[in-house]
């Protein structure tokens, strides 16, 4: 019997314990309830039989008593006593109480636990003729019954024990051993061994379990082989994916740069529109002055100075844009308000030309560690996005408010617009790459903002609807005080 199999021991306990308990309960019931009541019933039945027999004897004695046939009485009662081995004594008394039988009075030490005295009055038409008294000992009867009970109890004990033994053997052969083998094979499978012996599969549930286990093991073996092969190439594939991701990132960055450059060009166009118009006017004025013969050194110098100023402004714009988009070399402390203003300066002309007011409410002195150009680029993306929304929805009096505050060690920048807000179904996706609601949008601006703030500056970005538009929030940790 496999005693090293804990599961098998539990199975045996679950199977055999109820049987054992039931058997013991049955034995206890038989011993404590059924046997005593059986004995009591037998005693009562015996007493009834004795009374009936005494009645019959008494009836038979009536004619003998009436005719004083004492010899016949003695002969009869001797016979009855001989036939009833459990009768210790029979006595017959006449109506006067004189003993008629036996000749000598019986012993007086006949009392006992299983000894009873039965008295039967003998009557004829209500007239007492005598009394028949029998002292009987039903000890042997009870002993026989008790012996039968003991045999029954023995059977009730032996049969379940035999049954349990047979069941134990059957369980061992049919269940425990196969289960132990399966458990061993499972353990070896967990250790990576696929060659553990399995029990023979019969056409029963255990056999089905064995077959299923074998199939499962084979499947695991194949999967493991695939995984190992996969694992062998995993590093290579990871490198490939990393390279792809870097390329994607580079592409994104490139696209972002291109987008930023496009934005820059667009903003340069905005910035240069007015100076170019003014420059055109200066040149025209020179022509008009020449045509009207009013061109002199003074007017010419004035025109040249105006033109030079305009060209200087335009050149400053180029420098501003160039510096804005020059990548930072290293992480360093920077003023959040300065970079917000730089981004706002880039967008100023575009806002103005589109009739959008840009309000800045910036607290000074908020310094963060990071890449200032990336921060300002992130702010620029948000400002550009706000302008595009106001333009796309043709908001009459477009307005964007930029507010910079400190909150519990964070520099919190909020950009509110009155562009009508972000649709609820769009809101969760606005920071996703390549997600755009614009017909010709790239969908990477806000994604780049999120990447810049979260990856490079350990900050957070958030978008929500507020008032009559959207509110985008950029939070970056402020430099800790020394």
């Amino acid at each position, binding site marked *: 019997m496999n005693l090293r199999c804990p599961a098998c021991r539990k199975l045996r306990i679950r199977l055999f314990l109820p049987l054992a308990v039931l058997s013991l309960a049955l034995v206890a019931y038989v011993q404590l309830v059924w046997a005593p009541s059986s004995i009591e019933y037998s005693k009562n039945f015996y007493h009834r039989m004795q009374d009936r027999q005494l009645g019959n004897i008494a009836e038979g004695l009536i004619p003998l008593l009436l005719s004083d046939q004492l*010899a016949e009485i003695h002969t009869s009662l001797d016979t009855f006593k001989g036939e009833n081995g459990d009768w210790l004594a029979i006595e017959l008394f006449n109506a006067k109480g004189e003993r008629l039988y036996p000749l000598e009075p019986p012993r007086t030490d006949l009392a006992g636990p299983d000894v009873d005295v039965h008295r039967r009055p003998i009557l004829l038409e209500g007239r007492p003729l005598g009394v028949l008294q029998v002292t009987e000992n039903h000890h042997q009867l009870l002993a026989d019954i008790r012996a039968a009970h003991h045999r029954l109890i023995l059977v009730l004990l032996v049969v379940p024990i035999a049954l349990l033994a047979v069941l134990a053997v059957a369980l061992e052969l049919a269940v425990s051993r196969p289960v132990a083998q399966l458990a061993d094979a499972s353990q070896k499978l967990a250790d990576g061994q696929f060659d553990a012996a399995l029990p023979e599969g019969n056409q029963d549930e255990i056999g089905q379990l064995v077959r299923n286990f074998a199939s499962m093991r084979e499947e695991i073996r194949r999967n493991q082989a695939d995984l190992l092969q996969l694992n062998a190439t995993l590093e290579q594939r990871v490198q490939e994916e990393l390279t792809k991701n870097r390329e994607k990132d580079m592409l994104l960055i490139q696209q972002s740069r291109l987008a930023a450059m496009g934005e820059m060009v667009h903003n340069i166009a905005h910035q240069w529109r007015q100076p170019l118009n003014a420059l055109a006017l200066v040149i025209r004025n020179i022509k008009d002055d020449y045509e009207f013969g009013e061109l002199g050194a003074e007017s010419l110098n004035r025109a040249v100075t105006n033109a030079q100023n305009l060209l200087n402004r335009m050149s400053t714009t180029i420098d501003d844009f160039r510096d804005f988009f020059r990548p930072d070399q290293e992480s360093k402390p920077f003023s959040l308000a300065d970079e917000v203003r730089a981004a706002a300066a880039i967008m100023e002309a575009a806002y103005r030309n589109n009739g959008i007011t840009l309000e800045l409410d910036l607290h000074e002195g908020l310094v963060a560690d990071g890449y200032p150009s990336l921060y300002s680029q992130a702010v620029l993306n948000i400002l550009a996005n706000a302008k595009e929304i106001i333009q796309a929805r043709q908001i009459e009096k477009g307005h964007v408010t930029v507010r910079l505050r400190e909150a519990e060690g964070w520099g919190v920048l909020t950009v509110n617009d009155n562009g009508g807000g972000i649709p609820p179904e769009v809101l969760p996706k606005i920071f996703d790459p390549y997600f755009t609601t614009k017909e010709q949008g790239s969908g990477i601006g806000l994604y780049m903002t999120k990447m810049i703030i979260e990856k490079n500056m350990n900050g957070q970005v958030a978008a929500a609807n507020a008032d009559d538009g959207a509110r985008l929030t950029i939070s970056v940790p402020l430099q800790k005080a020394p």
Partner: protein
Amino acid sequence: MKNLFALLFLWLLTAPAFADTYTFGVVPQFEQRKTFAIWSPILAELEKRTGQRFELVTTATIPAFEKLFNDGKVDFAYMNPYYMVENVQGYLPLVRDDKPIVGILVVRRDSPYQTPADLEGKEVAFPSPNAIGASLLIRADLARQFHVNIVPRYVKSHSSVYLHVAQGLTAGGGGVVKTLEEQKPEVKDALRVLYTTRSIPSHPVSAHPRIPKKVREAVREALLALASTPEGKPLLAEVPMTRPVAAYAKDYEPMRGYGMDDLFVREQ
């Protein structure tokens, strides 16, 4: 030739063509099966020895047999010897046992009674009123010899008499030696004989006077001869007739003066 046939015819008329069947009545001292068991072999021997045929007859009760006897309806009878005194049919005794009949009066061994006179007024058990030895003789002697009045109690059998006395239910009881000897030791040891009566001859086998003398004598001789044979002696001992002798009416004459007549109970 004609005369010869006439004589032959006359002889056939007067002489028995086959042996006659005689009824042999036996008083029911025992129950009928025992009576038949005792007497059937004896009658078979008689048939062999006498050439006659005998039919055993008995009754369920003694009074019934007494009526048969008094009516003369049996040819031969084994009967209470008292009936030899009355004998209205004149039955002639043939054979009897040599041993006379005496009755015994028993009391408990530990009783204070020393003489029959001590039983004055006491209850005394008897088998039946007309049992010759166990009742009639004793009652006759108590009344005639000792002038004792007792209260008789008839208890059907000798064994019952002894048990009544041993059990102390009666002061005394009447029986005969033979039946007393047949009791269990504990019964016998509880009793003692207070008085033994005068004797009378034993029960006779008797024949009705209508039976031819030749046949009567043949039966007498056959019984006496049977008693002397090894096979016959035990048969007759069962009767009981241990030593059969020829019996005559004169053997029973002394009984007339015993005073049993008034004590004999006649069934109606």
